[in-house]
C-alpha cells in the first residue's frame, strides 16, 4: 500500500493529519475570519461579550461604507468610498506596473551585462530601502510641495514605483540569473535579435517570476499608509487613509463599518493572488536544462 502510494509520487494524508492541518490553518486565518464576521454584525453584536459566533447577518455596514445619512436625517450622502477604492486600485496597479517594467529591464541589464562594480550598484539600490519610511517622508513631503506633485496621481504613482523598484530589481535579477545562458545563445545563433532574445526567449520563461514579484509589490503598495496619508489629496486619497479617518468621532470606533471596509479592501488582493497562484507555486525551473 505504502509502496503504491510512493509510486504515484504523492502520499494522501489521513483524516487526522488533514484535521490537524485544518486547525492550524484556522488559527492563522482566524483574525481575517473575525473581521469578515464583524462586517456582517450589528453594532450590538459586534461589541457583545462574550463574543457572538451565531448572529443574524446584516448588510447595514456595507451600505454605510458608501452612504451616510445627512444631519437632517432625510438625505443619503455619498462617503466618497467608491473614489477612494478606485484610487487605491489605480495607484497601486500603476505603481507596481511601472516598477515591474523598469525593474525587469534593469534586472536584465544587471544580470546579463554586469558593469564594473555591479554588486556595489545593486547594494546602493537596496540601501534606499534601509531607511525607515518615517525618516524619508519629510524631505519627500517638501519635494512634493515644491514641485507641485502633492495630491496628484502621478506623484504617488511615481513614488510607489520608486518604492517598489529596488525589490523588483533584486527579485527579477535572481530569476534572470537562473535562466540558462545557453538558451539565449541558441536563440542568437538561430537568428534572433537582442530584442527578440529578451522578449521572446527570456520574458516568457519568467512568467512565474513576474507574477511573484507583482504580487509581493502589490501587497506592499496596497497596504501602504504613511506616504498615502501625507501625499494624497482629498481626490486622490487611498483606502487605508480613508479607513483611518473613520476611526474616532463621537460614537467611538464603528467596528462594523471598519470591518466592512477591510472586507471590501481584501477582495482585490485575494483575487489577484488567486488568479496568479498557479504561477506562484510553479516556480521558475522547468527542467529542460540538464545541469
Amino acid at each position, binding site marked *: 500500500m505504502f509502496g503504491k502510494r510512493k509510486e504515484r509520487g504523492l502520499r494522501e494524508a489521513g483524516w487526522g493529519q488533514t484535521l490537524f492541518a485544518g486547525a492550524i490553518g484556522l488559527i492563522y486565518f482566524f483574525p481575517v475570519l473575525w473581521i469578515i464576521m464583524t462586517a456582517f454584525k450589528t453594532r450590538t453584536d459586534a461589541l457583545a461579550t462574550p463574543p457572538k459566533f451565531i448572529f443574524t447577518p446584516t448588510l447595514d455596514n456595507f451600505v454605510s461604507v458608501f452612504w451616510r445619512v445627512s444631519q437632517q436625517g432625510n438625505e443619503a450622502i455619498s462617503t466618497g468610498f467608491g473614489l477612494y477604492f478606485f484610487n487605491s486600485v489605480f495607484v497601486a496597479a500603476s505603481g507596481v506596473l511601472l516598477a515591474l517594467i523598469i525593474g525587469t529591464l534593469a534586472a536584465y541589464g544587471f544580470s546579463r551585462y554586469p558593469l564594473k562594480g555591479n554588486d556595489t550598484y545593486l547594494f546602493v539600490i537596496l540601501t534606499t530601502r534601509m531607511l525607515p519610511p518615517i525618516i524619508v517622508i519629510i524631505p519627500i513631503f517638501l519635494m512634493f510641495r515644491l514641485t507641485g506633485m502633492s495630491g496628484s496621481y502621478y506623484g504617488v504613482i511615481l513614488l510607489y514605483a520608486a518604492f517598489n523598484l529596488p525589490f523588483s530589481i533584486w527579485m527579477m535579477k535572481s530569476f534572470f540569473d537562473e535562466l*540558462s545562458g*545557453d*538558451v539565449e*545563445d*541558441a*536563440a*542568437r*545563433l*538561430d*537568428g*534572433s*535579435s537582442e530584442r*527578440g532574445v529578451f522578449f521572446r*526567449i527570456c520574458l*516568457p*520563461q519568467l*512568467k512565474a517570476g513576474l507574477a511573484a514579484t507583482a504580487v509581493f509589490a502589490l501587497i506592499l503598495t496596497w497596504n501602504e499608509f504613511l506616504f498615502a496619508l501625507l501625499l494624497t489629496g482629498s481626490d486622490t486619497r487611498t483606502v487605508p487613509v480613508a479607513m483611518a479617518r473613520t476611526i474616532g468621532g463621537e460614537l467611538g470606533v464603528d467596528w462594523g463599518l471598519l470591518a466592512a471596509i477591510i472586507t471590501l479592501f481584501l477582495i482585490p488582493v485575494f483575487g489577484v493572488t488567486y488568479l496568479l497562484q498557479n504561477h506562484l507555486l510553479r516556480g521558475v525551473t*522547468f*527542467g*529542460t*536544462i*540538464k*545541469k
Partner: protein
Amino acid sequence: MSHLIIQDLHKSFGDLRALQGVDMVVEKGEFFVLLGPSAAGKTTTLRMVCGIERADQGRVVFDGEDVTGAEVRGRDMAMVFQTFALYPHMTIFDNLAYPLRQSGMAKADVVQRVNEVAEMLRLGHTLARKPGTASGGEQQRVAIGRALVRRPSLLLLDEPLTNLDAKLRFDTRAEFKRLHRELGMTIVYATPDELEALSMGQRIALLRGGRIVQTGTPDELYTKPQDTYVAGMVGSPKVNLIPAIRRGADDAPLVEMPFGAVQNGPWADALKPFPVGSELIFGFRPHDVAPATDTGGDDGDGGGTMRIAAKVHLIEPLGDVVILDLTAGETQLKMVLPEEQAIRYSVGDDVPVNLRVENSFLFARETGTAIC
C-alpha cells in the same frame, strides 16, 4: 576548399587562459572531432567559431571570409549545446520552427520543413508537447533537429551525447554518422570521450590546456601518438607506459625496463643519438600483448616480440573481451584477451606473455614527446 580555418586563437576568462593559440583547418564535408578532457577548451573553441564568444587574439575564417568579429546571427552554421538549450516555454514544433521563422520563411514552408526534420529524427509524436515533458533522447533529437532544420553548411556539436544514457549514446553515434553521410555537411564535434572520437571522426584534434596537442586521423593518433598524453587519451584500455633507461652501444641502442630489455623497435634509429643512461618511457597497447603459446620463442632480439614473465593480478571481464592486469616483478601492465581465451586464467597464475615490439612507442621521460 577549407571550410573553416582557425588561426592562433587566444581567449582568457579573467585569470583562466582557456585558449592559448589554437590552430586548425576543417575541410568541407569533413567530420572533425575536438577531443579533450573538460576545461581543455573545446566548448570555448566552438563558441568562438559561432561568434557567441569574442576572441582575444587570432582569426576565424569561415567559407573564405573572416568572421572573427562578425555578428552571431546570419552565419551559415548551427550549434547543438551540451545542455540542449531548448526553449522551455515553446512546444517542440515551435522550437524546431524558431530558426526558420527568424529567417522570415513563409508559414507553409516552415510547417513542411519542420515536419521533414521531425520525421527524420522520429519526433512526429512529440511536436505538440513542451520540451520539459520529453525524454532525454527526445530532447537531444529536438536539439539536433533545431540545428539541422535550416540546413546549415557547418554544424557544431558540443558534447551532445554527454547527457544521455549509455544505450542511447551508442545508438546516436551511428545516427550522427548516418546524418553526416546523408546531409553532407561539415561537422565539428566536441567530446571528452575517445570512443566517440575514434568511431565518428574522420580527423581528430586532441586538445589539452587550451592547445592542440596533435591533429590527425584516428589511425594516426592511435599508431603514432606524438606524446604520452595522446597515447594515454586514445585507445581503450589505456596504453601501458613503463619507465625505461637507454642502454647498449651507441649504434645498437637497447631499452632497459625492470622486466627486461628490448631493441629493434620502430624507434631504434631515432634513439641512437640519445646518450646512454637517458630516461625514457616505453609504451605499448594492451592489445599488443598476448600469452606466449610455446615455451621456446625468441627473447626480443629477433622476430619482433619480447617475452615477459608475468603473474595475473586482477581480471576485469568486459563481455566479449577481458582485461587482465598483470604484474611483472614490481611493474604493472594490462593485456586484453578475447573472452574464450581469458577463461583459462585466474588470479595468481603465472602467465608468460609476448609483447609485439613493432607496435611499441618510445618517449623521452622528461618531456613526454615521442622518439620516432
